[in-house]
């Protein structure tokens, strides 16, 4: 096996705390002694552990984004209950991980993320409008604006990580300077496709950032049972890739870690793995009942670690937060989401013709025949009977 290029991963390794764990809480996702130790900058009470590498204005922007994301999440939950959306997978509790990761990317960078990553995708350029349209059950929600290089959310678990390897590989081969970030859950790391994606990225040194949101569960199956490895980050060793564990509820720490990984990737130093330790405060999806597999106490403990609250406290301590500002943020967010919803719900229903016209670049002979026959309540699929 070839040796690591010197310097590879130094940027990330430098983030790993040496003086033991930085997180006070013992959580199910992570235990005190697990390697690598967890990187964090803001404590749940808003106090900071280290000099923060960003300005107060940047912090405020991150906070505003998290507020907007949470507004979207609540709105989507409500709409789903009203039957206006198909199943919805809420990300409440994971706003810091998602906003922090996306904020670390550059314009045009590729993103391949999941059904739970609406906040990440949005922050990377995916309009709320299209995210909502998709969730109403409309393929046109995946038709992103030009220049937004975000793939539609992956519904299959695991299959999309390798796409970010291919995207990044293409950039490398064409001397592009875009990188690709793929976001996935703890559960996805059990799929064989995780292994192949990590290995390909390492072998070809593609500029890919593997961003795992370890939120404690694959639906009902806790991370403590999914694997016996000490952490997810440590799995990077199996690929000769740097891996780091970061407090996923600390938006600044996530931003710093992903920025570092992105910088490595962009400068030709190859891929890395970031495990953001976080928690899904809501159900797996609107169809899920979490009481079947976890205690309220556990969820309560994580409510204490709310990713928004700690930034609010931090800003408060710096005199950069006020009730009015908060109200203004919330109102702005609501307006944006409401207008996105309005737009999405005004999109006319897709037609039969549209359905059969996006299978190939041009409808093929079988599809042309079906377009002739079909339409609502149309005939059978077999074609006209000739009576020669």
């Amino acid at each position, binding site marked *: 096996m070839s040796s690591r290029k010197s310097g590879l991963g130094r940027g990330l390794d430098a983030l790993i705390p040496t003086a033991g764990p930085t997180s006070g809480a013992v959580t199910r996702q992570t235990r005190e002694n697990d390697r690598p130790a967890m990187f964090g900058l803001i404590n749940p009470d808003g106090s900071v552990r280290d000099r923060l590498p960003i300005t107060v204005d940047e912090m405020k922007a991150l906070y505003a984004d998290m507020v907007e994301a949470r507004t979207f999440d609540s709105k989507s939950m409500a709409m789903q209950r009203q039957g206006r959306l198909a199943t919805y997978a809420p990300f409440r509790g994971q706003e810091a991980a998602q906003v922090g990761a996306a904020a670390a990317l550059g314009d045009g960078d590729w993103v391949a993320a999941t059904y739970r990553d609406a906040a990440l995708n949005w922050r990377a350029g995916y309009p709320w409008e299209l995210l909502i349209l998709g969730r*109403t059950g409309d393929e046109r929600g995946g038709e992103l604006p030009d220049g937004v290089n975000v793939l539609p959310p992956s519904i299959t678990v695991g299959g999309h990580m390798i796409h970010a390897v291919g995207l990044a590989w293409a950039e490398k081969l064409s001397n592009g300077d875009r990188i690709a970030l793929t976001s996935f859950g703890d559960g996805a790391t059990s799929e*064989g496709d995780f292994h192949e994606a990590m290995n390909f990225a390492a072998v070809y040194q593609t500029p890919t950032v593997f961003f795992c949101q370890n939120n404690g569960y694959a639906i009902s199956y806790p991370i403590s049972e999914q694997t016996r490895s000490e952490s997810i980050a440590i799995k990077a060793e199996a690929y000769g890739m740097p891996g780091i564990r970061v407090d996923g509820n600390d938006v600044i720490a996530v931003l710093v870690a992903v920025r570092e990984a992105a910088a490595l990737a962009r400068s030709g130093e190859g891929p890395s793995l970031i495990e953001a330790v976080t928690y899904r405060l809501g159900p797996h999806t609107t169809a899920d009942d979490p009481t079947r597999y976890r205690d309220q106490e556990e969820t309560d403990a994580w409510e204490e670690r709310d990713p928004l609250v700690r930034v609010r406290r931090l800003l408060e301590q710096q005199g950069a937060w006020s009730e009015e500002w908060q109200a203004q943020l919330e109102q702005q967010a609501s307006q944006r989401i409401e207008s996105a919803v309005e737009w999405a719900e005004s999109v006319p229903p897709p037609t039969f013709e549209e359905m059969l016209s996006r299978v190939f670049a041009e409808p093929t002979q079988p599809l042309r025949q079906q377009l002739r026959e079909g339409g609502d309540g149309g005939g059978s699929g077999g074609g006209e009977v000739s009576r020669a």
Partner: protein
Amino acid sequence: MPEVNLAQALNGALASALETDDRVVLLGEDIGRTGGVFRITDGLRDRFGENRVFDTPVAESGIVGSAFGMAIAGMRPVAEIQFMGFSYPAYDQIINHVARIRNRTNHRFTAPMVIRMPYGGGIGAAEHHSESTEAIYAHIPGIKVVVPSTPYDARGLLLAAIEDPDPVVFLEPIRLYRAVKEDVPDIHFSVEIGPVRVERTGDEITLISWGAMMKETRAAASRLEEDGVSVEVIEVHTLSPLDRDGIVASVDKTGRAVVIHEAALTGGFGGEIAATIQERALYSLHAPVRRVTGWDTVFPLKRSEGHYLPDVERIVNAAYETLEV
């Protein structure tokens, strides 16, 4: 005799199998603590313990492959794939390993196991959650492919599948899980895998279908009968091994047939059935065998489901086109 829906019937069958046969174990994603996303395994882990009902990592190839190893070692594993659309990562294990072990060892090692998977659309689900790709399984020599459409058959066929000496892919129509209830004896009975079920007899036209589309097929048959057409309904609850004799016997009698399925037309299993009918009953046919199927596209999202799913209207129209000639 309790009245149960299809989902409950399956749950009862699994309980019965676990109770009567030590070798039976269940494994799959979220089937333990939560009883599965459709609650088919509800309560079974509590009742039979953690060494009979296993939650697994999200790894379909691993689920099927490890169940296969267990089956070789003499157990009777029943694996659940959460949705048919997630069975594809396990396709290699199924076609290259599960289906072949008897052949490559000349009966010395075998894989008596069941791979259960909810399939089909109609509930406005997310991408990949409405698949109906039974054709890719029915083409594999060495596995059986079974799909019930009634609570009674669900219990009887699942118990037969678990007892079968060969591997069975067991498709469960999501749309019918809770659609109807019927009386299902709470005993260990089985429905034979193989023979088609002549569900309604008639002599002017044969409607042939399976799984979730049986609902529309039954409704279409009723509509046609109201119009005075004598309809025979054949349920092909076993796609492999295919009961060609049963199908041909019906069409020999009626001279007309419509095959209905939810999967895309091209390469769908309806082609096999239509081909068989013309092969063996050509001179009985008054009209072409028509296929009423999904269109040649991915099963669409909620807003387009109505465009895609064959409905009673399309079946009735096709029947009339067939009857007119």
